[in-house]
């Protein structure tokens, strides 16, 4: 449990009004600068005095980073758009309902009013050993305290763990990957657009980061193509407390059927690895098959292949299997453990 201190350590605050100014500040201060979106992740770090940036660049005044705009092939969502705005936007609700469903599952109404979609997908790992300021792998050290014989790892990874066993906590991330969203990143070298599934990285690639963002980079926009607009969507999040908690496991699926058969599908789970996991093998296996209980069973079994539970998170294997089954079936129901 983190120690509560009285005040946040002092830092120099900048509130740029344009993306260019924000990037210039990032370039000027480099790794000393901390980019602040909604502040829900950042202020935890500051208050616990684990992160002590010299400079904070608050993006709240950058109007071009806010809002949801229709474009020729889909929509664009500014990275500083709040989760509540995403939840309430009529076009998003009509065509991409999986995203507001996922955004609404995040945290509490107050937090969604302040938290941004850019912050939600870019937030750091929630492992308490890491958040407690211990010198673990993710903090630049050489040990994972969660993956020890006595580690508390009930909420940790069952897939793709590489030294660090923390998981990605985002609810909107799997929905965006299911929608084949593109992340628009401004870097010192110019603009870069990456697929949402490539935006997230695991510890094998870089153990100290959750995304491809490097110091000096800024996520500005999320583009959602119309490819999956109006598809059949499924999002479900399982958590300890329904009112306000991070996902133990969540699942997002976008499905296009032809008759009763699955024509196209994108299926993503989160809370099981340090990055959202797109289940491409499952997608390939169920394509062309009827969307029924039998196919769901096949998908569930296939989804958890390679899962390696830790001491206390073995339950995540049947949980993930059953969530995948529900996503394929398209409805929640009684599942066998």
């Amino acid at each position, binding site marked *: 449990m983190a120690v509560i201190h009285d005040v946040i350590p002092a830092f120099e605050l900048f509130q740029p009004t344009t993306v260019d100014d924000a990037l210039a500040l990032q370039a000027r201060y480099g790794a000393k600068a901390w980019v602040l979106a909604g502040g829900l992740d950042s202020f935890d770090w500051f208050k616990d005095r684990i992160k002590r940036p010299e400079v904070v660049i608050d993006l709240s005044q950058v109007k071009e980073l806010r809002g949801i705009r229709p474009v020729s092939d889909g929509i664009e969502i500014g990275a500083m758009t709040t989760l509540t705005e995403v939840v309430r936007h009529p076009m998003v609700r009509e065509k991409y309902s999986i995203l507001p469903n996922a955004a609404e599952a995040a945290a509490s109404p107050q937090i969604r009013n302040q938290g941004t979609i850019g912050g939600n997908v870019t937030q750091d790992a929630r492992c308490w050993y890491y958040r407690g300021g*211990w*010198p673990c792998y993710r903090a*630049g050290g050489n040990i994972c305290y969660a993956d020890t*014989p006595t580690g508390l790892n009930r909420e940790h990874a069952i897939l793709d*763990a590489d030294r660090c066993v923390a998981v990605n906590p985002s609810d909107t991330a799997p929905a965006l990957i299911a929608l084949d969203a593109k992340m628009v990143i401004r870097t010192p070298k110019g603009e870069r657009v990456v697929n949402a599934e490539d935006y997230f990285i695991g510890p*094998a*690639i870089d153990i100290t980061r959750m995304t491809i963002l490097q110091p000096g980079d800024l996520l500005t926009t999320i583009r959602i193509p119309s490819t999956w607009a109006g598809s059949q969507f499924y999002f479900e999040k399982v958590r300890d407390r329904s009112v306000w908690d991070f996902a133990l496991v969540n699942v997002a699926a976008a499905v296009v059927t032809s008759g009763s058969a699955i024509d196209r599908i994108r299926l993503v789970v989160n809370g099981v690895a340090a990055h959202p996991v797109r289940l491409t093998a499952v997608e390939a296996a169920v394509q062309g098959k009827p969307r029924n209980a039998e196919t769901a069973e096949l998908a569930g079994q296939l989804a958890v292949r390679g899962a390696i539970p830790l001491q206390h998170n073995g339950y995540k294997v049947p949980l993930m299997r059953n969530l995948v089954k529900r996503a394929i079936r398209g409805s929640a129901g009684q599942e066998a453990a």
Partner: protein
Amino acid sequence: MNLIEWAQSPWGQQIPIHIAWSLLWVSAIGGLLFLIVHAIYVKAKPAAAHSDAPAVTPAVLAHVPERVPRHSLGARLFHLIMAIAMLALLLTAFLPKVGVKFAWVTYHWIAGIVLTISIVYHIFHASFWLDFWSIWPDREDVEDASRRIKRAMGQSAPEPRKFGKYPLENKLYHLVVMLAGLAAVGTGLFMMKRVQTPFFTRNPYLFGDMTWGWMYVLHGLAGIGFVALVTVHIYFAIRPEKLFLTKSMILGWITREQYLDHYDPNRWHVSERDSDSETVQSKPKKVLA
């Protein structure tokens, strides 16, 4: 500049976690500086007067083959495998540190296992099939080194002898590589207990935080040391006057002329019989008239 990164353990203890990665650049630049200085020195130094060839009996000369075996097939294969493993280890260790991000851990420990097996092979091969002592500095090496230093400083000293199979620099390099290699392999094998491998049950509590910390520091120091050592090794391998040695590491032999030009048959004895053999002994055998 901190040479070691420190952190506070959950128990409030200051523990080392690894070396400062800026030392990587110190090692790389140090290696490059050495080769630049050496190249300038070689270019600038006056040509050494030819030493009188040691008196070798015609009978011995008659037994020196046209192709003098220098490295057995086993030794060459070991060198090749070790070199591939070493380069893989350095690339997987340090590319991520300079910004090239990829899943490096599995490749790194696999290369480490290959290196370990090759070193174990080398120890047995060198101990039982090669002349174990030929690579270790001996009294004659020290005497000759002293003579060279004195003569370089303008003092009078007897002319140093030609080398045995391995010059002193080569022997010292082997010594340093051996120490760094054992440090890297020894710590690396223990560090495999901290990551998922098919060989061990993962146990990060095998040692205390302090012991683990120093182990990581030692592993890192050996690793960055190898950056300079490998740089220097490659530099010498491609120097024109050393190319015949590099070639011998591929083909296994040097010519009779190269042997007689560079080596003292009294200290590196070969005979026609050796040319037919894969193993080459360098037994010191007095053949002076």
